[in-house]
């Protein structure tokens, strides 16, 4: 944690950028525990459509979330080229299925632009800012907002 604090003090922070379909997103690197390849998940009964199932992460049971479906986009059809971002969300560990990890970004607060006024509630819920880097648009998302404790209980 001291690492994050240090970076913030200098006004910069590190993010991991990844690709889903033709869009790019990023999350705070501090919440990412590891990145691993796709392995078939065991589907869960009574699960919401974005929960792909659970896998074995060195002895622990890890739920895999299709981030594309969770963000309201098309459901993913995972291939061996897909990756799982293992992220810490509050007290839980969740695997996020994405198409590819594209970048590690070091940014300062000035790089972050506010999310434009849009009508969709879903995007407003998770989007925390927009980055413009090399003419790309990268949406910064807040995992805690995406998986509130209540939500997964409702699942």
């Amino acid at each position, binding site marked *: 944690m001291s690492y994050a604090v240090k970076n913030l003090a200098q006004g910069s922070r590190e993010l991991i950028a990844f690709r889903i379909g033709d869009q790019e997103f990023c999350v705070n690197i501090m919440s990412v525990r590891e990145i691993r390849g796709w392995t078939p998940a*065991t589907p869960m009964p009574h699960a919401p459509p974005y929960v792909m199932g659970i896998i074995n992460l060195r002895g622990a*049971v890890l739920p895999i979330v299709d981030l594309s479906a969770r963000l309201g986009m098309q459901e993913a059809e995972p291939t061996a080229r897909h990756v799982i971002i293992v992220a810490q969300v509050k007290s839980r560990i969740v695997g996020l299925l994405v198409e590819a990890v594209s970048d590690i970004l070091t940014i300062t607060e000035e790089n972050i632009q506010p999310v434009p006024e849009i009508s969709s509630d879903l995007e407003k819920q998770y989007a925390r800012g927009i980055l413009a880097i090399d003419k790309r648009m990268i949406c910064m998302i807040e995992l805690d907002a995406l998986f509130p404790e209540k939500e997964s209980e409702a*699942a």
Partner: protein
Amino acid sequence: MDMNEIKEIFFQECEEQLAELESGLLKLNDGDRDPETVNAVFRAVHSIKGGAGAFGLDDLVAFAHVFETTLDCVRSGKLEPGQDVLKVMLKSADVLADLVSSSRDGGSVDESRTRGLVKELEALAHGELPSASGHDAPKPAAKPAAAAAPAPKAETPKPTDDSGFQPIPFTFDGFGQEEEPVIEGSTYEVVFKPRRELYSKGNEAALLLRDLSRVGEMSIACDTDALPDLDKMDPEESYFSWKISVKTTKSEDDIRIVFEFAEWDCDLEVKFADEASSDEEQPMRPVPFDLSILDDAPSAEDDDKQAEHGADQTVAEAVSAAETATSVAKAAGAAARAAERKESAAAAAAAAQNNAAAAAASAGQTIRVDLDRVDRLINLVGELVINQAMLSQSVIENDATGTSSINMGLEELQQLTREIQDSVMAIRAQPVKPVFQRMSRIVREVADMVGKQIRLVTEGENTEVDKTVIDKLAEPLTHMIRNAVDHGIESPEKREAAGKNPEGTIKLTAKHRSGRILIELQDDGAGINRERVRQKAIDNDIIAADANLSDDEIDNLIFMAGFSTADKISDISGRGVGMDVVKRSIQALGGRISISSRPGFGSTFTMSLPLTLAVLDGMVVTVAGQTLVVPLTAIVETLQPEASAIHSFGASQRLISIRNSFCPLVDVGRVLNYRSTQANPVEGVALLVESEGGGQRALMVDAIQGQRQVVIKSLEANYTHVPGIAAATILGDGRVALILDVDAVVAASRGQSLRPEMSLAATG
């Protein structure tokens, strides 16, 4: 190890002693009059007092002392432990527990309560019975206490005040016993001069002399002539010698045996002497023999002290670790004797068993281990099991014949892993006793608060279950006990009006049943008022006003969220966070709870919990392409259904006939939403299961893969509870498989025709 750590150990021991104390008192309360029980109670308070003294916990010492004094009256038979006396004592035990915890964690104790109890205890010690009702205990207690304490040792300054026990100033005179009888023997003169080697080999002259004192009456003189001035003294040299005259009936050889191991390292002369010559050979004045100061082993001293003090009482109180075996035998003997008296055979046997177990526990060597370390070990062993399974699988894949030496070795490895796993699990298994004991205090306190008379009967408290289960059991159980006392049992007046014993009984039972632990909480109260429950449920919008519910369903409404039938909200229970919370915490443990009630006769709550939260024997099956594990304990039999045995029943139900009885068929794939249409039963396998709610069901699966022990992995840690699924596990190929919650699946199938959503949510 610093002081705080030692203190922490003391507090841990206090907890054990308090548990011992309470269980002893409860046994006395049930009419057990085994002296060993009284002694155990006494020892518990005494040890707490001793430890507290060492740490300067004055409040604790003061109270424990008064308590101990009164207990001593019981021990010496001056005070009959009747119901009234024991009530005071149980309260005192509670206060003692409070004092211990306040000494540990800070916080305050209800001082007026403490003072009140001190007065009551002192009154008891002085032979006054509690004012409430002083009629039922016979009164040998009226005798002044001091008169009843005999002082068998003449020469000892007897440290006895009128309470009968005052342990601090202490003279060791345990050897005095040998002095009393007049010895008609011969006198031997012994000259014992140890050499330097004797000390360097770790022998100790004092111990040899003490052993010698056991041979007969002796007087001893130390010859210090050889002792040089301090500046010339070699601290490792031996300078002393002793002249001892021993008067004994035993032979010279017996004296020599004492020095057997030191023979080569000392000059020893033993010769027969008559009275005259002994005088002649002892120019120095013989000193009366008192070796008390030599004995510095505190625990032995402690026990001897007690034995000494109560020499007129049973020998058992001198119990030290070495003598525990005797006390076990004694307990067993007591059981045998009691068993002859038929009326209390069962209770006494149980008591003796407890005694024996307690004695055995204190005799066996134990260590304290940090729970985290055990958990780590258990996790590692869990991984080992998975790893071993993966290894087996890949060997089997590569070696189809199964005869190679690798295969043989692997089989052995499998057995070893299993044994390791069992042993590790056994480390965590603990009797439910501590939790049950806590409940008796709660019953006492709550009953006092609401003015009811309630007796808690516990059964099967030695039933062992995993530590994690025990830890998590206390909270829901407390809640239920409070509920039972507050709502379940009626007031004494109402009970009498109903023709019942004004004293209500709550029975708490634990037993093992088919790989689970079953805990029953039974009260003999009014039972559930179904009309009121129903009305309340309608008022709270839990059910529709015209809902048609069976008695059983109404009873189970009390587990719904936000349900409380207490007309007025009391301090004790009825805050509206009632049984639904209990139910949820039981479910979080992988357990189930149900209630049955008979109006006028009381209610019974039945909880069924897994014995361990770590491993499970399961049958691995395939359902709609998915691998599932069905707990083996649930399965009664497996069968391949024939088309002729399947009968359609109504629109969607199917029954299977098994030996002329019809059993509903449950398609697991449908219940878990793996497939949308019902599978053809003839193509699959039926698992006949027995569920908690009673009744059998045939679960349809596609195929059976095999049977194996699986390590249970929590789904809740990273995900959430899934209805119909108990947990997950990792199979040999490293993939995750789900463990079926048979009872939930059965309940879901039962509810499907009625109200699928609710029963899934409520029972999952």
